[in-house]
């Protein structure tokens, strides 16, 4: 399907996955792909320190919105902007909006915030999501990409709306939670994109998370992004020593042995990854968007463009999503 159509399907994409699967990288790549398709995109980060800035060749950013990648140019892409939204910022902002005076604000040092947040668990999460909902409603961008907390926490993060609708039965928090829940469960407003690696434990956790999110919260799940898939490299099946002999190439035995070991490693890992991808497809009836392993652990703007290419291709290969 056409990327522009894919990203226009819902206003908010929540990107979730276990720590270490490259959730922030995927958030950045999704944002860039959407912007290339002409959608202005805002990346919202919860925890800070994600390194999303450096993927765009920019410094780290904070609460103030920044432009990570200006639009325009021959391809006619749109802006990618970004900001951090911490739960404490959201809580203070919310309390201030609800009539905290200067006197009482003095009480709101870190510990007092903890008391409020402990009194009503999930309040921090709901305020972050409430703020995202507010940004969505205000139409600050065509697409908001939310880099969610790591997997175990992602469930409680999204579950907070359901929980608070029940516990805070009246008052502004209840309204807030109900509004957030409405957004989360409306596929035309919000979808969750889960990220994993093609490895056993991350795949297991992703499958569990997917079912919990659908059953308990009722969010709509977009395609699964599988990060770090070895790109195919044909021609590694033979024995390099035999290949060298047949081609009449004089290559040192040590170098041939290194070539053979590296080829074995790649073949073996490619096979293991394939097994995990199959298992994921069997356990979870969601389309997969593979992202290539880039043979670098130091990702920058060039890598981001390569990932956006791959996402664009993967999305292009998806069938049109039938309506909900």
């Amino acid at each position: 399907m056409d990327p522009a159509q894919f990203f226009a399907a819902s206003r908010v994409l929540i990107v979730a996955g276990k720590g270490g699967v490259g959730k922030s990288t995927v958030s950045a790549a999704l944002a860039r792909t959407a912007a290339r398709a002409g959608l202005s995109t805002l990346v919202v980060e919860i925890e800070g320190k994600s390194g999303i800035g450096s993927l765009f060749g920019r410094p780290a950013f904070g609460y103030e919105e920044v432009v990570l990648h200006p639009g325009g140019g021959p391809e006619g892409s749109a802006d990618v902007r970004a900001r951090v939204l911490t739960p404490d910022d959201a809580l203070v902002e919310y309390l201030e909006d609800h009539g905290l005076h200067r006197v009482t604000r003095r009480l709101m040092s870190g510990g007092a915030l903890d008391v409020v947040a402990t009194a009503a668990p999930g309040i921090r999460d709901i305020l972050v999501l409430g703020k995202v909902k507010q940004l969505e409603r205000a139409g600050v961008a065509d697409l908001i990409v939310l880099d969610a907390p790591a997997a175990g926490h992602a469930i409680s993060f999204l579950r907070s709306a359901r929980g608070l609708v029940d516990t805070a039965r009246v008052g502004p928090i209840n309204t807030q939670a109900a509004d957030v829940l409405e957004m989360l469960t409306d596929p035309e407003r919000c979808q969750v994109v889960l990220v994993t690696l093609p490895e056993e434990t991350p795949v297991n956790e992703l499958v569990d998370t997917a079912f919990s999110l659908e059953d308990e919260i009722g969010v709509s799940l977009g395609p699964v992004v599988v990060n770090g898939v070895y790109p195919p490299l044909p021609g590694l099946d033979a024995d390099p020593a035999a290949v060298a002999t047949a081609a009449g190439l004089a290559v040192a035995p040590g170098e041939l042995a290194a070539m053979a070991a590296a080829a074995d490693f790649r073949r073996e890992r490619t096979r293991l990854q394939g097994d995990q991808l199959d298992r994921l497809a069997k356990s979870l009836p969601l389309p997969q968007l593979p992202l290539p392993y880039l043979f670098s652990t130091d990702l920058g703007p060039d890598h981001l463009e390569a990932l956006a290419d791959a996402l664009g291709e993967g999305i292009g290969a998806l069938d049109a999503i039938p309506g909900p």
Partner: protein
Amino acid sequence: MTSGPAAHPPADDPLGRMLDAHSVVICTGSGGVGKTTTAAVLAMEAAHRGRRACVVTIDPARRLADAMGLAGLTDTPALVEGPWPGELWAMMLDTKSTFDALVATHAADPEQAAAILENRFYRNISGSLSGTQEYMAMEKLYELHTEERFDLVVVDTPPTRNALDFLEAPRRLTRFLDHRLYRLLVSPTRGLVRAVNLAAQTFLRTVSRVVGTEVVHDAIGFFAAFDGMEAGFRERAAAVVELLADPTTAFVLVTAPRADVVEEATFFADKLADAGLEVRALIVNRVHPDFSGQTLGHVVRRAEALAGTPLAPFAANLADFAAVAATEEGHLEGLTGRVAPAPVVRVPFLDSDVHDLGGLDRIAAHLFPDAAERSG
């Protein structure tokens, strides 16, 4: 025996000597770097070395938990049977029951304990107060250490994004319990001066408006019931902090060779240093093998020279991995310098995930010469 990269553990066995010389080992690092597995491997190796070891884990992957007999078992160490002269015990931390026990210990009488345990605000603390899980991990560690049932307790820390949480957890919780707000909340029964009370009332009204009066009522009930227990909690927290600084406690930093993770590990090493604590060892998991042993420039030039020949894909593949190995080493350089003279031990990418004791053995072979010998 499953195949895999050949094991080359450091010959002078720094990790083995570390296990022998300490009674507490704390594994720390960001989420997803194999911290839980590493903690289990260290405890198992200690058992091989004849020690009575217990590993306390926070959130093990299900199959590893099953393999260690941890399924459905919380807060009680379970004996793991195996071919070692020592003992291996494993325990999954349950934040809530650890906290409950702590309340019971410090309460003046069973009534006070019951009043707290039944309070809804208290029940929220274990689930939502930041730092509670970290604090309880340290509390459990302290408890197991002082019981003297074990020669060595290895603890896996929660995958907190913010390393500060872990070191400051004990202080954070006592600060919370000690907070001015606490006094303000219980002040209606204590007759504080009217000015303070007014501010408190304004605050409470605002909070009530936001979260509901019922919720505020629970909080006041909790702090009233907790009255008198702060001192006990504070003392205990001080004892835990002291244990962390004890020379028989070792911090092991676990990382993967990725830029973002190394950055967090470096930040953590700095925080430990600020607290006067040393990193005793750095374990780097999931290291890509360096197949060529040549410089990246050399391997790339060879790939260019062989382009267009039938060996081209092999040379290109070798160059790909040489590039990965070079960037990984580049990332680690600053960190290894930062934790020096702590030994740095690398564990290569394994063929499959670890979910049984055999898998732990395979990792141990990369960390300890004895283990490499056992696995042949």
